[in-house]
């Protein structure tokens, strides 16, 4: 051993260098990489972009290792005889003794000087064999199967299968088109027994209603007798089912997946701000699926939120600005509508006017609402609270998606505080003009018809025909969450983006544009903002929490801009499971 430091460093073995960082050296398909101890082989391969096909493995679920699709060839250095120094190559790695039998890469973790081969005759033959077994009894329903186009079995059959079947006997018949729950349809012939759905219902949804019955080729997925797969998280099983065994009733036969365009956005049904993908064809939304965000919703989503989009395409959508004359609503142009609003509002003292907004509005809409309030010098501005029971997983008690954003933008701890004041002021005739944005006061805020008919001027922007609109002198049609861009802040302080997946119908307009045009009609100031990016710039210039941000800098995974005490229960469960080593995460 030399005593010069550089020479010592040179002599340091790769295993010691890695060990200092808590890593191990692994050879994957001939190249050496370093991974943290305890990494699963399949994850190691994925991290260095080496493709290993799999079915049953899911990073958020326990690993049963039952599909055998992830087989790879594994090798370790041979154990030296007692007293013998292991031999090393010039880079300091020990030679790898390859095992003659394959190993599953999902359940095994990496070790120092391990070798993994994901190609080669052994591995390819294994995959061909697994594929052939899986397809022996598979019905090949692809032309009518909703999974076609995003089916792992299809993909891996093309990628790793042998191409032709050697099986000549009758296929095993199993129940098809089984009704196992209100939102999920089961086709047992298509099931490849990966058990992902069973594990999900047990481990994540804590409602273990699924299980296998029978044995061998007759193994059948079924729901516990007397029970239904009716958890509010049941549709996640359709997402993780690698084949078309579990499919969504709502999406059933609606559209083939290869026609769908995917737009990343966020869910607006509660304060969690679940990340979603909106699937559209043309101007129609066909389904919504969760999008992975480990700091928000992991990879899951409640059914009730996922399915709450059909109103966007419904007949009750408002599509034209309407004015009330002689007790009837007639449609007018936007220009007339703005002018009408401005003329009416001039008739009132600022103290006679109030604004009620919504915490379903984006930050951009809220900042413009703030400007509108300043333009009119209105003393009262409130949002409408929306509270319901939380589900201890993803659904928060606060069903408004942007309460935190409203707190930041309106610079108040309770943006709902003055709703009661406004209401009593309407009752005793102090407030005569009311501007309502995106809320139905009668249904959602408990206002009465009598109170609303007390008003001399009521303006409402909304998506759908609603009881409040019946009293409104001016009804302006707004855009649904999938029709607009903008940003919201979820309960844990994460700023996230909405993206436009479809266009608003007919003459309906993006809400921020409505407020912008109202402001300029009232103030007579025609200097317009044309881009939502510019509204956001205004936010980042005036609200400290948003400083130095732009809409594009937010990114698809969001950016934390505020500290809150809120913890998403599902993530807490997941973290505990990662810490105890049951899952990878």
């Amino acid at each position, binding site marked *: 051993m030399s005593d010069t430091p550089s020479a010592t460093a040179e002599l340091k073995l790769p295993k010691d260098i890695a060990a200092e960082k808590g890593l191990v050296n692994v050879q994957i398909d001939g190249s050496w990489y370093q991974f943290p101890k305890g990494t699963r082989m399949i994850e190691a391969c994925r991290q260095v972009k080496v493709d290993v096909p799999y079915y049953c493995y899911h990073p958020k679920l326990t690993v049963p290792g039952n599909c055998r699709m992830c087989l790879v060839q594994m090798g370790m250095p041979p154990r030296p005889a007692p007293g013998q120094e292991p031999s090393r190559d010039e880079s300091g790695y020990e030679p790898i003794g390859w095992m003659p039998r394959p190993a599953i890469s999902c359940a095994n973790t990496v070790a120092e000087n391990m070798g993994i081969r994901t190609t080669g005759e052994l591995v390819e033959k294994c995959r061909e064999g697994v594929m052939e077994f899986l397809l022996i009894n598979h019905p*090949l329903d692809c032309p009518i199967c909703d999974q076609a186009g995003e089916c792992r079995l299809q993909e891996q059959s093309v990628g790793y299968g042998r191409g032709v079947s050697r099986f000549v006997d009758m296929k095993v018949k199993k129940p098809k088109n089984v009704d196992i729950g209100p939102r999920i349809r089961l086709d047992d012939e298509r099931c490849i027994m990966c058990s992902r759905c069973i594990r999900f219902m047990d481990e994540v949804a804590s409602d273990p209603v699924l299980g296998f019955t029978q044995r061998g080729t007759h193994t059948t997925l079924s729901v516990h007798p007397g029970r239904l797969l009716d958890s509010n998280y049941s549709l996640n099983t359709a997402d993780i089912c690698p084949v078309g065994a579990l499919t969504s009733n709502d999406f059933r*036969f609606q559209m*083939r997946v290869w026609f769908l365009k995917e737009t990343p956005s966020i869910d607006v049904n509660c304060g969690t701000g679940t990340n979603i993908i909106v699937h559209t064809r043309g101007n129609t939304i066909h389904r919504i699926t969760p999008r992975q965000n480990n700091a928000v919703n992991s990879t899951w989503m409640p059914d009730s939120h996922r399915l709450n989009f059909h109103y966007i395409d419904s007949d009750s959508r408002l599509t034209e600005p309407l004015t009330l004359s002689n007790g009837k609503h007639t449609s007018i142009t936007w220009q007339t509508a703005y002018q009408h609003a401005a003329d009416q509002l001039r008739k009132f003292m600022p103290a006679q006017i109030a604004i009620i907004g919504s915490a379903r509005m984006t930050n951009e809409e809220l900042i413009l609402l703030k400007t509108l309030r300043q333009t009119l010098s209105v003393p009262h501005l409130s949002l409408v609270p929306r509270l319901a029971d939380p589900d201890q997983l993803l659904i928060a008690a606060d069903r408004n998606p942007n309460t935190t954003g409203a707190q930041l933008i309106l610079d108040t701890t309770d943006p709902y505080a003055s709703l009661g004041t406004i209401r009593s002021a309407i009752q005793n005739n102090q407030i005569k003009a009311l501007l309502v944005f995106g809320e139905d006061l009668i249904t959602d805020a408990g206002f009465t018809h009598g109170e609303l008919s007390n008003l001399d001027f009521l303006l409402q922007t909304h998506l759908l025909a609603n009881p409040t609109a019946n009293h409104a002198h001016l009804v302006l049609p707004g855009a649904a969450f999938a029709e607009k861009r903008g940003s919201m802040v979820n309960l844990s302080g994460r700023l996230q983006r909405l993206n436009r997946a479809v266009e608003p119908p007919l003459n309906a307009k993006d809400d921020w544009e409505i407020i912008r045009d109202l402001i300029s009609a009232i103030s007579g100031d025609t200097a317009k903002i044309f881009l939502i990016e510019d509204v956001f710039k205004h936010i980042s210039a005036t609200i400290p929490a948003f400083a130095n941000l732009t809409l594009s800098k937010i990114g698809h995974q969001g950016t934390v801009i505020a500290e809150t005490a809120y913890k998403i229960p599902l993530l807490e469960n997941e973290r505990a499971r990662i810490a105890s080593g049951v899952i990878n995460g």
Partner: protein
Amino acid sequence: MSTIKLTRPKLDAGEKIYFGALIKGFFLTLSHAVTSLRGKSIGAKGLNSTGLGVTMQYPETKWDDHMPEYYRGAPALVTDEQGRERCVSCQLCEFICPPKAIKIIPAEIPSDDRWAKVEKRPLAFDIDMIRCIYCGMCEEVCPEQAIYLRKDYAITGLTRADMVHDKKKLYEIGGVRIGLVNKWNELK
């Protein structure tokens, strides 16, 4: 580029006055006229001619019985030997169709239907014959052998809407076709 020089043929005096060739031409035309009047034009039979010469009096006479087996006319849907509509609305033809002529609205087959086990069929199936280019891709891609290019070629209409073949019309044109795919019928 290479240049090729052509030498003009030397014409003799007779050829220089082209009158001779003109007369020759008149006689040739006259002889054709006579053959045609006698109904003896070459290929007259093969071309289904009526009246004089090789002219086919379309639309009184048509090509129909002269169409080769491989002729590709209007695409149409077919039913199988048991009267089951073969199409399961997989929408592959809609996807592959180069001019986007096909529009399908899929639907579930009600559980009391005779073919409930097929689960899926088209609620509406429209082919816009103004768009269709008779390429035959739909026939080629169909996994259920449900769509074929038939021999209908005279697709006319007075409005654009007339030119859209709906499901009823498509089955009318298509008729029955006995094929190989028998995954869904009672034979299987």
